């Protein structure tokens, strides 16, 4: 049998695209080498924020935020979304300058960010430390509980009639008459169209099609405290973007911000750098002093994908009709559902409401196209 669409990779991009394609009437198979949303999409910090999103993505992220805020309607299952205020802090003059500039750019792109004083910031977030010079305040912020993503999508995809093949690694792709055969540990899975949504593994996946798209692998470290009494009620970041901090309703505080661990695409996030865990924790406690009394119980690392221009890879694969790619979205958990839905709309023959991010710009001239990096 042949599917209308075979998707390789079951993160937030692959899952969302599968969901909307199936709801649009396509017969969809989703091939995932492990369990759904257990790589970046299941281990990320879950921050749904404009203040860490790339300027070019703000319009997408705003729409995606609205989707997350009513996930129950389109996803149908809980991922623990909390909508709250977000603060990006500046403690030094230099950071204040950086913040004014960055917040200004994001504001121009449509993010409702106001610059406020330290005192005003403290009235919004009483847990804040003294010494804040300036803060970016965004009312469109919040977070989800990323580890619930897999369970939520698993249920939604089953209800939508998607054939989900978990623990089924794809090992290659063959082009054949009328479409593709995705070679897997469980035999070939055939489809008229193909979507590669493999996160940092998009590079090897495109390689199966003879396309070379370099994808940088970021190894992001995160840490979590045990449950503590309320110490904060907003999402707190810092001007340069290297802090993301929030407290979940059950009391745990997740400390992140993109501090780098050790690992790669082949081995995963193999090791955490203690110095950087300490640095991140110091930054967190500098912003929210009451955190000092908490205990860190766990740290981990996940892999985030980045293209050469740090903008998404979302659209058709040049020169290979009916093959598509979706990934490498910066702060991709925030924007993922909207971006992947756009691609599903494109596949269903609808005009996407915002433009995609075709990868032609990123391909080396060697593949016959002009590189724009």
């Amino acid at each position, binding site marked *: 049998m042949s599917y209308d669409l075979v998707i390789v990779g079951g993160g937030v991009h692959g899952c969302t695209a599968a969901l909307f394609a199936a709801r649009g009437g396509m017969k969809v198979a989703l091939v995932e080498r492990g*369990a759904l949303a*257990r790589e970046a999409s*299941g281990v990320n910090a879950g921050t749904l924020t404009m203040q*860490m999103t*790339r*300027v070019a993505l703000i319009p997408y992220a705003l729409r995606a935020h609205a989707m997350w805020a009513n996930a129950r309607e389109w996803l149908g299952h809980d991922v623990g979304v909390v909508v709250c205020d977000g603060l990006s802090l500046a*403690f*030094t003059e230099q950071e204040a300058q*950086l913040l004014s500039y*960055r917040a200004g*750019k994001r504001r121009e792109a449509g993010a409702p960010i106001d610059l406020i004083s330290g005192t005003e910031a403290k009235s919004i977030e009483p847990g804040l430390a003294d010494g804040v010079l300036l803060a970016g305040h965004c009312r469109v912020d919040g977070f989800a509980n990323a*580890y*619930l993503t*897999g*369970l939520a999508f*698993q*249920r939604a995809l089953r209800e939508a009639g998607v054939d989900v093949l*978990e*623990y089924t690694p794809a090992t290659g792709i063959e082009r054949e008459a009328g479409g593709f055969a995705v070679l897997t540990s469980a035999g070939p899975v055939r489809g008229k169209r193909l979507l590669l949504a493999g996160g940092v593994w998009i590079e090897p996946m495109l390689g199966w099609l003879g396309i070379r798209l370099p994808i940088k692998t970021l190894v992001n470290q995160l840490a979590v*405290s*045990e449950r503590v009494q309320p110490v904060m009620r907003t999402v707190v970041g810092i*001007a*340069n*973007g*290297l802090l993301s901090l929030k407290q979940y309703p059950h009391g745990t505080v997740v400390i992140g911000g*993109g*501090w*780098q661990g*050790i690992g790669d695409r082949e081995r995963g996030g*193999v*090791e*955490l*750098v*203690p*110095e*950087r*865990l*300490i*640095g991140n*924790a*110091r*930054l*967190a*406690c*500098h912003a929210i002093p009451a*955190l*000092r*009394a*908490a*205990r*860190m*119980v*766990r*740290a*981990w690392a996940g892999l985030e994908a980045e293209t050469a221009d*740090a903008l998404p890879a979302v659209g058709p694969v040049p020169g290979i009709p009916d093959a598509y790619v979706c990934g490498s979205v*910066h702060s991709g958990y925030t924007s993922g559902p909207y971006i992947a839905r756009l691609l599903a709309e494109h596949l269903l023959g609808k005009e996407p409401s915002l433009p995609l991010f075709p990868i032609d710009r990123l391909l080396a001239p060697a593949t016959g196209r002009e590189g724009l990096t």
Partner: protein
Amino acid sequence: MGKVNKGAGAIADVIVAGAGPAGTNAALAAAASGLDVVLLDEQDAAGGQVWRKPLDGLNGLPETAELKAGNALRERLIASNVRFLPGRRIWSVSGQYRVDVIGADNPEFFEAPHLIAATGAHERVVPFEGWTLPGVIGLAGATTLIKSGGIVPGNRIVVAGSGPLLTAVAAGILKLGGTVAAVVDIAPLGAWLKALPALASVPSLLAQGAVWTLAIGRARVPVYRGHAVVRALGNGRLEQVVIGPVDAAGAPVAGSDAFTIDADCLCVGNGLVAGSDITRCLRAGHTYDRLRGGVVPVLDDAGRTSRAGLYACGDGYGIRGAAMAESAGVLAGLAAACDAGAISAEEMQRRAAPHRATFAARRRFSDAMAGMMALRPEQVRAIAPETVVCRCEDITRGAIDAAIAAGAKDLNQLKHFTRCGMGPCQARMCGDVVAELLAIGTGDRAALGALTMRPPLRPVPLEALLGDFSYSDIPIPEPAPL
């Protein structure tokens, strides 16, 4: 020692993590070969769990063989040039090799090309209704109170579970003048008789067990063999223990009479778990070995792991008991010395020989004991749906079964579905029981492995991790692109 951000790390030839019988012997062997050795432990004194040092200022504690062995070990350590740093909790191991600790005023780290992991085992308690009540404590925890504090943990104590710690704890309580209301051993008498020839292979230890058993008999303590705790009852703290018969596999006998014993303390344990914390964190090769207490590193005959420069010894990396932990420690210390070039391969073999012999001679005994302590799958299967399995998050057997029914197929996924293992103990209390529950459906316990191990190895107060710092000290990385 290296303070984070303030100067380089303290460099040594070898770092030994854990100062129990295994780690201390490893450190002594490596130092005697001329290496500069740092030995770290979170306790104030060497000795580990089994040879724990009594608190200073307590007098009249029974002179046990373990106390003597511990004192001898501590004296050898003092006489050596091992740099022993007590009161240091290891929270991170990384690189080739860096060990980060808290415990001093500021966070510190140590670096060495050789790391010997010897952090010891922890106890397994197979859950039953009421096991979370105050007054119910681990058997191993009871040994700690008895040995280092001269404390009996209750007025009327039920001692229950499996393995040699049962008699050790019951006898220890009696020796201190306490009252044991009952000993409840999951193993039938037949199982002990079957093990007897193997136990007799180390006469001194068999004799010790016999002395304990006699003491229990003399005190006319009822001993229920082939029985297990069904539930613990009480209003806010333990008041009664219900016990009932089990079959040879450890499963409750259906329809049989359970009965109730009044008690204010229940010491209960079902063997030891080899946490393999450090080797798992550093991703050495591992295998599942039920007899050895779970997922354990693959080791050569001198304790080398699959990673160059990383060694493991003692019960934390395969349950074998204190006597073998000592020999394993010496072997690992010699292996590190040999690999560091401090002694030749021939020298190593020569010095290792007697310890290899001890190791071999104790193996039969140790296997038999480990067998009595190994997890009994039937006992796990019998856990009732409403019983809490994950203590940190109050997750019941029923909730775990529901997540498995919803499609959770591996341990990390089960954790995401239920939060089981996300609490502060990081699945150390429930992990291998949960894996056994998951294996009921998948059929292959070994293939499930263990949850991914990550730092911190134990929860760390952020306060302790921060140390003194100023904002400008924080090495803030380059900002992400706009």
